[in-house]
Structures are given as structure tokens and as C-alpha cells.
């Protein structure tokens, strides 16, 4: 079992969701986050003072998947989220010891 964690540009969320659905994956959890990286924010000007914007809005998607599917999930996300421009984001794959569906008590692959 793997947990695929992807940081993407916010406006790509719908495309990524559709790409995952196309893979037969419907479960995912989404968080609004702020990212710091190579991509720099616009400088904001407020009444004569300039401020560097250090953090940019990003979306974090978490998807649990069986080990076999994990690579396909990574591929699908990276294809859908790519614009080729700086700031597209990262994907992290984490090992998972156990998954449980609260409603039924099902475990691991059945629980996803």
C-alpha cells in the first residue's frame, strides 16, 4: 500500500481528478496549502511598500493506492498536472502499513 501525495497548481485540480477517475480511482483527499520553491510570487505593492510574496497557493492531493497501481497514479497525476512551467509541483510516494475503511472495517486493498 502506498500513499501518493501530490502538490499541484490549484487550477489543475479538476484535470487531475478526471485523470484519476479515468484510472478507476475515485477516492482522494484534498487540502489547500501554500508552497515555497523555485517559483517566486509576484511582488505586492501596497501604498509604496513592496513585499516579496513568499508562499504561493497550491493544492495537496492524497491518494491511497495498492502498490501495483501506485506507479500509474503517479503517472496520471504528473501528466494531468504538468504545464511545463516552474511551480508545477512534486509528487511524493510514501509507504503505508495499513488502510482501514471506517464504515465497514474493511482493510487494505479492500478499504480503498
Amino acid at each position: 500500500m502506498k500513499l501518493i501525495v501530490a502538490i499541484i497548481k490549484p487550477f489543475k485540480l479538476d484535470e487531475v481528478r478526471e485523470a484519476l477517475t479515468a484510472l478507476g480511482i475515485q477516492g482522494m483527499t484534498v487540502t489547500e496549502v501554500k508552497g515555497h520553491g523555485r517559483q517566486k510570487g509576484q511582488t505586492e505593492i501596497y501604498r509604496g511598500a513592496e513585499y516579496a510574496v513568499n508562499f504561493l497557493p497550491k493544492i495537496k492531493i492524497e491518494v491511497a493506492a495498492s502498490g501495483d497501481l501506485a506507479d500509474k497514479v503517479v503517472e496520471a497525476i504528473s501528466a494531468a498536472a504538468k504545464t511545463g512551467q516552474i511551480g508545477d509541483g512534486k509528487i511524493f510516494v510514501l509507504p503505508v502499513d495499513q488502510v482501514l475503511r471506517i464504515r465497514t472495517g474493511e482493510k487494505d486493498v479492500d478499504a480503498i
Partner: protein
Amino acid sequence: MGTAFADTAPTLNSGDTAWMLTSTALVLMMTIPGVALFYGGMVRKKNVVTMAAQTFMICCLVTVLWTIIGYSLAFRDGGSMQAYIGGLDRLFLVGLDATSLSGTIPESLFMVFQMTFAIITLALIIGAFADRVKFGSLVAFITLWLIFIYAPIAHWVWGGGFLGGLGVLDYAGGTVVHINAGIAGLVGCLVLGPRKGFGHENMAPHNVLLTMIGAALLWVGWFGFNAGSALSAGTGAAMAMVVTQIATGMAALAWMTAEWVIHKKPTLLGLCSGAVAGLVAITPAAGFVDPVGALWIGLLAGLICFWGATSLKKALGYDDSLDVFGVHGIGGIVGAILTGVFASTAIGGKSGGLEGNWGQVIIQIEGVAATLIWSGVGTFVLLMIVKAIFGLRVSPQEEVEGLDISLHGETIQ
């Protein structure tokens, strides 16, 4: 003036009274919720409740102080001291009965209309103190400032004191309200020192929509402020409303265009700031200039206040957090001087520089100078007294955490 039926002994005119009742409501609305939102939207989210609480507290405190002593000091006869300060015969408003008139309106109505002017003047100042002043110290400062700064200056200009006698033109309070609040704000922010993080942390307004609501209510309420200062519902009030509208629109466009050209983006904050600058500058001029004069005053106020709130502040490095001096101080000075330039005999019976009376400009500058000195020095002294007794600034920990939670225990979701 006011109706065709006024005769020698003034009697109550119901039309004039209706307009002044309305004007009083409009000017109250400028402060709550006007200033509370205008300022509240400009601070960081952790301090918005504080700006609103300070504004609301000031509204209430000045109401009570004005009742107890302020009105009497500002507007009653001061006897031998009359040039400088009023008398004490209306303490607790005794003697203000149901029948006394002030011109064609009840004296009680004149008193409460003037009360709303005192309220907004004190509320304007706190923009310079934003995000770092102690609440209790503010209560003390407001009390002292109303009595020792506001009441005398209102008396000088409107209560029979020496500035009115000099011939200073100030239709609705450019000097008493705006220059006065502006210089107090400047002195205040110098005494308090800059906010933690000033100059490198992002302190952009957390919700410029609130600021827009505030600016819009200021604009609408300013009709009561300027056209209400006619104290009657006639051609004077109408013309004051017209030039108020024109100068405000022009100033907002000027500020917006300046930042569009210089910073590449026109902003809502710029539109709102420009509008307030225009309102401030037309305040002394409202009953004296014509529409073309108003266009000029708006244009110059928009551009000069833009410069004041951006370049000048940056160059001098003080942290006038919400630009009380940049907008009200500078806008007030611009307006006072331009009133002397554009005053038109056909509109208000007074001539200005363009009609050959350049001496009026000198008189206007004298009014500005007197206010800057008394209010500037006085504010400094009062702040030092309050600082010695209570301290002025919250602790750094409270400042970082935000005053909303640390002083008031409230947050906005």
C-alpha cells in the same frame, strides 16, 4: 436662507430641521460603521476586531464627554477667554431645553450634529496607531485630546474664537477635523514607533472589500458632513453636495490613474484612498467653490495625497499605518490652501486668489499653521503623559499574536 419665508427673528424651519436630522444620522454613519470598516479592512486579519472596537469605543466615549463638557467648551461664550476657549455654562447640557434655537434649527440638534464631528475626528486618528496601541491608554488619550485639543480648535474656528475672526474659510472642518486628526496621527506614529516587521513583512490589507464599504459609507455620509454644514436645506447645501461629489470622483480617478501608470495596476484600495483624499480636500471648500474648482481640487488632492501616502512616507520612513497624515493631513492642507485659491464670490460670497484676492491664501495658511502647531505639540505632550502613566504599546508577544485575541479575546472566522 433656507426658505423664502424666513423673517428677521429666526423661527424654526421644518425643512432645515429635517435636513439636519438626516445629516446627523449620516455623519454618525461615517464613523460607525464607516471608519470602523475603512480601517478594519486595511489591517491584518489578526487586528480587525481591534480597529472596530476602538472606533466603536471612541464613538461612545466622545458622546459622553461631549455631553459633559465638550460642547460647552467648544461652542459657548468663553467670556474674557473667548478668543481661545468657550465657557462652562452648558456642562451636562444644562439649559439645553426644548425651545432654544440655533438659527432656524433647534440648538439641541446643532449640538448633536457637532457631536458627530468630534466623534469622527478622534476616530480618524487611530489609523496611525493601528496594531500596537494599548486599549486602556487609548481611552485615556481620547479623553484628554477631546478636551485639550479638539474643543479649543473647534472653538477657534466655529465657536467665535480667533481663527474664525481672522477670516479663515473652513466650510465643514478641513482644519478642525482633518488637519487636526492628520497631524495628531503623525505625531502619534512617531511616538509609538513602527509596527514590528514594518518594511519587510507583508502588511497589505487583509480585506479591501471592507475598506470599500467603509469608503463608500464615508462618501455617502460626507453629504451630511459638507452639505449639512450649511445648517439649512437650501441652495448652499445643494451646491456643497455637488462639489463634494465632483471633487471626490475626480480625486479617486487621479489616484487610480497615477498608480496604474506607476505600478501598472489600478487597485480598489487606490480608488478608495483617492476618494477619501478628495472628500477631505473639498471639505473646507465645499460652500465656496464651483464645479470647475471642484474638478481642480479633486485632481490635485488625488495626486498629492498619492505622493504623500507612498513616496513621502517611504522617504521619511515613519509608519503611519493607515496613512492618516498622508490622506487627512496632506489632503486637509491641500484643501485649505486651494479653498483660498478657488473661492468664488458667486457661490459662497467669498473671493479667492483666482478672483484676485491672493491674501486669502495667506489667511488660509495661517489657519493651517495654528492647527499644526497646537495639535502637533499638544498631542505630543498628551501622549507623553499617557505613556508615563500607563505605557502606550502592547507587548511584542501580544503584537505578534494579534490584538484581537490578546486584548479583546475575539477573532473573526
